């Protein structure tokens, strides 16, 4: 017994030592940090974290704060629209590029370049294009359509769609690339078969290709969804949460309460809610994706 233990422990010693940064990150930061935040979300921490537990008080306050509910509503609208639209746009663009066209690389480079830019750059450019005094609105008015009105960034009802325009511009290229990779993975014989049977192309896409690309769609969906929850920089750059609080998002709520409002407890509670939202998406996916594979 005394002999067996050290033996087991010292096997692959170098590998274990080399993996220490990974182990520390996984345990201390990812697990430790998450647990710490969840625990402290039940305290009355203000300027500094204090272990004075107050039950669900922070959560009650969170849900009765209109800024939080507005943030969630925005995230929901933004998330749903960008999920649906970027899947549709990404798929359509990918199917256009999949037609054995010339200059495919050029088109792909153009459609994907926004993804290389940061959200800050994206937000600032679109803030400028959508600027009511100089941007699209004034250009169209200058062209003769005096009554034209397109001013999403200063309209509290529409502002989140203004952010959506920028977000789609930045991110749809990525979805296109993923979809294209999925389409290229499909056996060419399927296309031959459907051509022999005289099935029109659009029908082949809808009835055969899309069902075959199910795994690609699911993966893409998870990527978009976990990205959406993190939306922060884009809003900060493009609207700063305004006008008023009408384009606030949860990630901004967390940052503002933690680092500016000196109300840590609220920040912890809000970030825990964000974690919960992500888990609802990721856990079923991980279960479907890896639950069966690992056994095989």
């Amino acid at each position, binding site marked *: 017994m005394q002999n067996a233990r050290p033996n087991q422990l010292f*096997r692959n010693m*170098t*590998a*274990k030592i*080399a*993996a220490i940064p*990974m*182990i520390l*990150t*996984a345990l*201390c*930061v*990812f697990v430790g940090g*998450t647990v*710490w*935040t*969840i625990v*402290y979300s039940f305290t009355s921490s203000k300027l500094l974290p204090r272990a004075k537990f107050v039950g669900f008080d922070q959560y009650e306050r969170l849900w009765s704060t209109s800024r939080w509910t507005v943030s969630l509503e925005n995230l929901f609208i933004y998330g749903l629209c960008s999920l649906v639209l970027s899947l549709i746009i990404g798929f359509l663009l990918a199917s*256009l590029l999949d037609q054995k066209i010339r200059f495919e690389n050029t*088109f792909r*480079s*153009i*459609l994907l*370049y926004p993804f*290389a830019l*940061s959200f*800050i*750059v*994206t937000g*600032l*450019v679109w*803030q*400028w*294009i959508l*600027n009511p005094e*100089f*941007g699209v609105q004034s*250009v169209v008015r200058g062209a003769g359509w005096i009554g034209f009105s397109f001013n999403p960034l200063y309209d509290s009802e529409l502002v989140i769609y203004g952010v959506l325009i920028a977000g789609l*511009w930045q991110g749809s*290229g990525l979805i296109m*690339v*993923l979809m294209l990779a999925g389409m290229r993975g499909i056996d060419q014989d399927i296309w031959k078969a459907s051509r*022999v049977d005289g099935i029109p192309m659009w029908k082949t896409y809808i009835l055969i290709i899309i069902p075959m690309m199910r795994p690609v769609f699911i*993966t893409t969906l998870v990527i978009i969804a*976990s990205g959406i*929850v*993190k939306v*922060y*920089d884009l809003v*900060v*750059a493009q609207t700063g949460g305004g006008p008023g609080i009408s384009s606030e998002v*949860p990630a901004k709520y*967390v940052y503002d309460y*933690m680092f500016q409002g000196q109300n840590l407890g609220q*920040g*912890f509670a809000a970030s*825990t809610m964000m974690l919960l939202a*992500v888990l609802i998406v*990721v856990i079923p996916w*991980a279960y479907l994706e890896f639950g069966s594979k690992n056994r095989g």
Partner: protein
Amino acid sequence: MDKVNRLEGPAGPRPKKAFSGRNIMLYGTLIMVSLYYLLPLYVMVVTSLKGMPEIRLGNIFSPPMEVTFKPWVKAWSEACTGLNCEGLSRGFWNSVRITVPSVIISIAIASVNGYALANWRFKGADIFFTILIFGAFIPYQVMLYPIVILLREIGLYGGLPGLVIVHSIFGMPILTLLFRNYFSSLPEELFKAARVDGARFWGIYFRIMLPMSLPIFVVAMILQVTGIWNDFLFGVVYTRPEYYPMTVQLNNIVNSVQGVKEYNVNMAATILTGLVPLVIYFVSGKLFVRGIAAGAVKG
């Protein structure tokens, strides 16, 4: 026999169809879409080359009547954030000083991790790896404050080294996955032969794995340089204003409420910030696509 014949019927040269209509539609759509995607870049460049009077009078889409590079100079060396008027150059050098060590350290750590996971599997390794991959999905907001405390404990909160550590931590899941998958795809005989010849952990890593996997290192580098350069959240949380990376400074310059808005300077600053990732993107071409495809398909 009969069946086979019928199947062979439609084979042979495909009947020529008038494809031109379809092609016009196809290329027309693609060109329109491409123009839409290029528009913001065009507007940025055009605006940054105009003088303020021209911007006030004209249309953001029209090319500049008089090309001026003053906004670029001003954005680089004079633009103000609050009381500080050093321009974006400070943010640029901060970003360089953040990005270079972060990229090197995160890739070094992750490649060794991936190698250990692929070739030297030890008990419990899979558990840590799974936690790591899950960590990629946890919203950063959940871990922001605990890391503030950790950094404060070791005295690195607010400076550049602290931010480098943070980037190395958050780059780890995706890079480790990238390297693990790559190293597992290499033929195992190679590894076994080296072991038979007496090579150890580091010997195999430096003499065999490293030279064989330069492409994946380039992919990881592209992924990290663009990712870290474009970061905003970590920069704003973990550094003091004098160490703010370029993105944070850019946002402060453009969205500052004081003074008259100089849109041409703002756009010049915006392009300057986007230039590094854009150059990397256009130079690296297919490798960038490979990087994001590997980065995106987690798991």
